[in-house]
């Protein structure tokens, strides 16, 4: 079941009713049953096994750790056992198609959705208990719900025990305002996913899945589209997850904060997939960095390379992800070494508050991030290398006459006209809708405070305007949402 399907909406309506009709002391059971059912509908039995195993192991080891003195040999062993078993589950589930002989013909072996997220969550739980920063959860029901809570089950956010467990026991009260904001957030997330992301996916696929036909500008444009696609896809999912959880009285963590406005790669990782980057920062980077502290200036760069290499692997054991991870590791390590000089330079020339400098930094960061996305999206290393080596060819097409522009925009652009270069042999309608979607995205998410813009003010003040927006949002999702049932990008991880 995916958030962008009607069957989920019906499922959730039912869960919502049962949840609020049930006695508060039993609500955890309602949600747990719903979460297991939700996961089971994926029809890949190994997933339920993985979930149950991760839950039982982490629950049991957590309780064992609670009885032992911190950092003792025994508790260290238990901790490592817990981490090992959790990672083993992740690796086995990922490699199931290779491990299970094909004559057994079990369905959906390659599906591993959600496992990487709740395995990481379980590991963070064990570490927090080990360091005595989190008391072990004694109630198996609440703990199981903490791991399997269906709004965050498939693609996160990765929630810390201290953030989620207390809320499960004492959810927030539902008010008109909460319902309104939750539904609006869900609708916006859905819009980003089915109207913007999936449509951009068609354009990106037209290039990345037919690479030999494209060079130069097309590769740049497709990559920029991909950067927006993956953002709308993943942040759309997250918005839907947060909206759904909010209707149940639970506040999930923010996962995105205008990532493409980052002024440095370090800033980017404070804005992209925040629950994941804070996880790798707290549980991989910091300990590794501290363990290497005798290496002084080299401790941070090395720790960063290790951290981002592992981050690449978490996404998948293909060279594309490894390269993507290593690129970000390289970016971060370089930044760690150069940041003090950048600071001195900006201070020396009094450029710290310069808007031009800020725009330049945003632009450079965006280009670096997009360069890394090439390897994330490309089918394999050969394709990635193709993009990199052909990015600059054919760029002489830029100085163009208007006539050629018009000629090239004819839809049946099978030839090498500008239309083909910029529209990738995809229909004019899809191209225009994609640009329309991007425009809406910028209008809604670019401003620092949407409520203070003319749009936000009008929205709050005029009922007619507000309901027009609701209507347009709903209609565009129904009418423009792509027919192709594209799965979520991050559900592969």
């Amino acid at each position, binding site marked *: 079941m995916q958030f962008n399907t009607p069957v989920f909406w019906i499922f959730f309506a039912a869960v919502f009713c049962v949840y609020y009709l049930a006695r508060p002391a039993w609500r955890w059971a309602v949600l747990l049953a719903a979460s297991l059912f939700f996961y089971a509908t994926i029809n890949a039995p190994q997933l339920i096994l993985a979930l149950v195993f991760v839950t039982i192991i982490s629950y049991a080891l957590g309780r064992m750790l609670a009885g032992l003195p911190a*950092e003792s040999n025994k508790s260290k062993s238990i901790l490592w056992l817990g981490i090992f078993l959790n990672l083993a589950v992740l690796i086995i589930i990922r490699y199931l198609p290779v491990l299970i002989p094909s004559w057994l013909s079990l369905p959906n072996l390659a599906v591993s959705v959600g496992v990487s997220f709740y395995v990481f969550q379980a590991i963070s739980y064990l570490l927090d208990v080990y360091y005595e920063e989190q008391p072990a959860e004694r109630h198996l029901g609440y703990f199981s719900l903490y791991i399997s809570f269906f709004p965050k089950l498939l693609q996160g956010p990765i929630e810390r025990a201290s953030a989620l467990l207390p809320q499960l026991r004492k959810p927030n009260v539902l008010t008109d305002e909460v319902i309104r904001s939750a539904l609006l957030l869900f609708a916006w997330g859905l819009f980003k996913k089915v109207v913007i992301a999936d449509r951009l996916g068609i354009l990106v696929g037209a290039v990345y899945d037919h690479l030999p036909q494209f060079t130069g500008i097309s590769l740049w444009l497709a990559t920029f589209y991909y950067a927006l696609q993956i953002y709308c896809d993943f942040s759309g999912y997250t918005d839907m997850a947060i909206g759904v959880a909010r209707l149940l009285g639970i506040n999930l963590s923010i996962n995105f904060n205008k990532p493409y406005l980052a002024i440095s790669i370090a800033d980017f990782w404070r804005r992209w997939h925040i629950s994941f980057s804070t996880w790798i*920062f707290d549980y991989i980077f*910091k300990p590794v960095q*501290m363990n290497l*502290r005798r290496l*002084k200036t080299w*401790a941070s760069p090395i720790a960063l390379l290790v951290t981002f290499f592992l981050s690449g692997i978490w996404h998948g054991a293909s060279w594309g992800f490894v390269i993507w991870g290593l690129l970000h590791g390289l970016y971060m390590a370089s930044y760690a070494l150069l*940041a003090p000089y950048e600071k001195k330079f900006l201070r020396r020339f009094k450029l710290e508050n310069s808007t031009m400098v800020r725009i330049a930094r945003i632009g450079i960061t965006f280009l670096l991030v997009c360069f890394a996305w090439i390897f994330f999206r490309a089918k394999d290393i050969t394709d990635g290398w193709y993009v990199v080596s052909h990015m600059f060819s054919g760029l002489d097409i830029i100085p163009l006459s208007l006539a050629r522009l018009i000629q090239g925009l004819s839809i049946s652009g099978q030839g090498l006209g500008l239309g083909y270069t910029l529209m990738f042999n995809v229909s004019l309608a899809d191209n225009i809708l994609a640009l329309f979607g991007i425009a809406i995205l910028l209008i809604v998410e670019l401003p620092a405070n949407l409520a203070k813009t003319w749009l936000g003010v009008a929205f709050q003040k005029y009922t007619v305007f507000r309901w027009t927006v609701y209507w347009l949002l709903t209609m565009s999702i129904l009418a423009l949402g792509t027919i192709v049932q594209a799965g979520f990008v991050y559900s592969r991880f």
Partner: protein
Amino acid sequence: MNTIETLNTIFRTVFDNPEINIRPEMTANDVEGWDSLSHVNLILAIENHFHIQFTQKELRSHKTVGDLIQSIESKV
């Protein structure tokens, strides 16, 4: 010199700023240049000066200057 004064000297050296005056409630947000990258230099300087070594658990507990002082004093 007591702990907080010694620590203040260390702060001034590590962050190259003779104007720093630490108070127990301060965090990394309150001291310019104190971030996760430079924090490791601070820890190293503290360990070298006081001839101590922090455990991972202790390192994780350092949220404010006060935590640092408490941590140092418990080991010296």
